[in-house]
Structure formats: structure tokens, C-alpha cells
């Protein structure tokens, strides 16, 4: 344990590179996932269509999507003989981002939908009477529920940064290329380097907490004087 702390304190360049790669991959995946999931959840809240309930049920079910299976499917699609093999994305950070996006979109969309559905119930009569367009309804809900949506995004970040199975498969855990904190932890544990694995774990926890706190601070969550 002492050795692990020492490794964290000395924080060498390779460790920093791995940590930064983890952040870069997960934050990119998070931004892309939010761009997909938030409008989708708003649409599901305000629009009534035939298969709406089924779509919501599927979205909720997909929250429990096994990351390893996602990794496998992305691998098949991106492998040289796969339909997207020509893009040459397998074993790159982009492939890891794709896998993470697939994993966290249902999570963000489901949590966001719960909040937006409640807000829609509150605003419904007003927005209908104001005769606002579907797009304006969605924009109003997304803006007014931004604090709750931040929580959804943080849940997505938590899932993404701690993910190992899918990114191990599609990234390959290649040194200086696709190795991130979680895959490095798995590797070092396998090698019996528990001190290094633990040090990486501490950094992972610090990153997760740091990003959460930063987003709360930027979003001014829990401040009474503002929404």
C-alpha cells in the first residue's frame, strides 16, 4: 500500500499519459453520448408515437448491456473482415470511444428521460397553451432540467471511466496507444504488480471524483439562488 502511495506521489510520465488517455477517451465518448442521448430523451418525453413505450423499455433494458458483448460486436464490425474494417479503427482510441458511446448512451438517455418526463408533466399545459413547436418544447425541457441532466451525464462518465471489458477488446491495451487506467490495472494485476495496480486505481478514483466535483462546480449544482 505504501509503495502504491509512493507511485502516485512520484506520478511518472507514463502514468500521466495513461491517465490523460483515459480522460480523453471517456470525455469524448461522454460528449458524443450526450449529443445523442439528451435530444432522444427529450423527444421521448414530449412526442407520442406508436412504439414509444417499447422504445423506452428497450432503452431501460439496454442500461444493463454487458460491456464485453458490446466490445465483441464493435470488434466484429471494425475488424478487417467486418463491414467497417476498411476504416482501420480497430485497436485505436476511436474504437474505444465508439464502444463507450454505445455503452453509455442508454444509461444517459434513461436517466435523462425520467427527469424530463417529470418536468414535461409539470410544463405540459403551459407549453401546449403557448402553442410551442416540438423543437421549442424539447429545448425548454433540456434547458430547465439541466441540473438533472448533469447527473445523468455524470452517471455516464462514471460508467465510461470505469469500463474495462469492451475497451480491452476493441483497444487491445496497446502500450503508448490504447492503454488506459482500467486496462492497465487489469494488466498489472495479472502480472502480480499489485502496488502499481493499486496506484493506478487511486488515480482512477481521483480522476472520477475530480471530474464530478468540477462538473458540479461548473454547473453550480446545489446553489439555492439559481436554478
Amino acid at each position: 500500500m505504501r509503495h502504491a502511495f509512493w507511485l502516485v506521489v512520484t506520478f511518472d510520465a507514463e502514468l500521466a499519459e495513461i491517465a490523460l488517455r483515459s480522460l480523453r477517451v471517456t470525455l469524448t465518448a461522454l460528449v458524443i453520448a450526450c449529443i445523442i442521448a439528451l435530444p432522444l430523451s427529450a423527444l421521448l418525453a414530449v412526442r407520442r408515437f406508436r412504439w414509444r413505450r417499447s422504445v423506452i423499455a428497450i432503452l431501460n433494458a439496454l442500461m444493463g448491456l454487458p460491456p464485453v458483448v458490446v466490445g465483441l460486436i464493435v470488434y466484429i464490425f471494425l475488424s478487417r473482415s467486418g463491414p467497417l474494417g476498411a476504416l482501420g479503427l480497430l485497436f485505436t482510441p476511436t474504437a474505444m470511444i465508439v464502444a463507450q458511446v454505445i455503452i453509455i448512451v442508454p444509461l444517459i438517455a434513461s436517466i435523462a428521460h425520467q427527469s424530463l418526463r417529470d418536468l414535461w408533466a409539470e410544463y405540459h399545459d403551459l407549453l401546449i397553451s403557448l402553442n410551442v413547436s416540438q423543437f421549442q418544447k424539447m429545448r425548454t425541457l433540456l434547458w430547465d432540467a439541466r441540473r438533472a441532466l448533469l447527473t445523468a451525464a455524470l452517471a455516464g462518465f462514471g460508467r465510461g471511466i470505469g469500463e474495462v471489458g469492451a475497451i480491452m477488446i476493441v483497444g487491445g491495451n496497446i502500450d503508448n496507444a490504447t492503454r488506459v487506467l482500467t486496462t492497465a490495472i487489469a494488466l498489472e494485476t495479472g502480472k502480480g504488480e499489485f502496488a502499481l495496480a493499486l496506484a493506478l486505481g487511486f488515480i482512477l478514483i481521483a480522476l472520477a471524483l475530480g471530474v464530478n466535483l468540477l462538473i458540479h462546480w461548473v454547473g453550480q449544482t446545489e446553489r439555492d439562488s439559481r436554478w
Partner: protein
Amino acid sequence: MVTELFPLILAGAETSRRGKRLVGPVDLSLDGQGLCVVIGPNGAGKTTLLRLMHGTARLTAGRINWACDTAEARHHQAFVFQRPIVLRRTVEENLTYPLRLRRVAKAVARRSAQEWAERVGLSDLLCHRAGVLSGGEQQKLAIARALITEPALVFLDEPTASLDGRATREIEGILSHAKANGTRLILSTHDMGQARRVADKVVFMLGGKVHETGPATAFFEDAATPEARAFINGDIVE
């Protein structure tokens, strides 16, 4: 602007849900003058009639005709709900919201919000969250938000139902000011005192139908039907 919308004519207008008729058939003609009060006991269909006229309840039979195109008429209307609905925003942002929807410039919308906040006595609360206001303040905000676009017609569904005397008086003051400025108001209430104070015309509803209608003075002095007389006298009418 008022003459563009009226007369409003309802001919055999009905709304039903799951086979049950909620309101109708209603035959009614409203001109563009003064304040019309829709009264009646709970469950008489006052709210549904207002929503039907506003276009937020589905017309299942009959017709509703405005003097202009229905979409155009809808553009010049606003609705105030019994339980004020405020956006999770500041008072100022609540007031600017309908203006911004109509693409009014931000600076103009803010100036207008400040003017309206002053008119309804909320100028000190512009930067406060609307959610922390009292019930009376929220309702004043909802009314100001409805009036800020200068609609020709405002529907008010029991706007003072859960408010005390002071808040009720303030809101009636705002409404009489709006009426004086030429805004047509259609207000539902089961508060007979309020109906007597503010009404120019009365529509008495019972069992989902318009039971009696006429000028307020004539209605309160000499209602034509025994049910209306009983309601005016405070008897239980079903």
C-alpha cells in the same frame, strides 16, 4: 385586435373522453367586450369549456368558429391555470419566455419583463427563482406572463381559487387594468363574490352544459332558471 377574434361562436360543441361526454353540446356566442365569467359548481365543466375554446381540449363534435382563422386566433390568446405553472427559471426569465418564443429581441423582452414586473408588483423579485414565490406571487407572475404578449383574449381558470383575500384583490386589480386596456377576459370561478365584482357577462354551467347566459346585472338580479337562482343564493346545485 379584439374585433379580429370575435364573435366567438360555439355550435353544438362537445368534448368526450373514452366515450364519456365531458362538456356539451354547447351553443354559445361571445362578443369582444368586457369580462365574461363562467360560473357553476365543481364538475360543471367550466375548465373543460375554457380549454375547448382555447383549443387545448379536443373538439369531438360540433364546431367552434372565430372571426378569423383558428390558428391566427390561437396566436392572440393566452391561458392562466388554476394552479400557476411557473418555469424553473427566474421571474424575469419566466416573463421573457413567451416573448423570446416569438423571437422578440432579448433587450426588448427584458425591458418588457421589467415593466410588467412593476405593474404586478414583482419588480423586487425579478432575479428570484419563480419556484420560491408565494402562491399569490406565482399567480401574478403567470398572469403577467400571459399578458406580456398583449393577447386579445386571456382565459383564466379559477385564478384566485387557492389565494387569500389580499392576493385575490391584487389579481382582480391586474385583470381590471387589462380589461381597461382592451384585453378580452374569460374567467371561470365558483366564487360568487368574485363573479359579482368583475363580471360583465355570465355563463352559468351545470352538468357539462351552458344552463343560462346573459349580462351580469340581469343574471344576478333576476336569473331565469331555478338552478341559477339557487346557485346565486349559495344553495347546493348538482
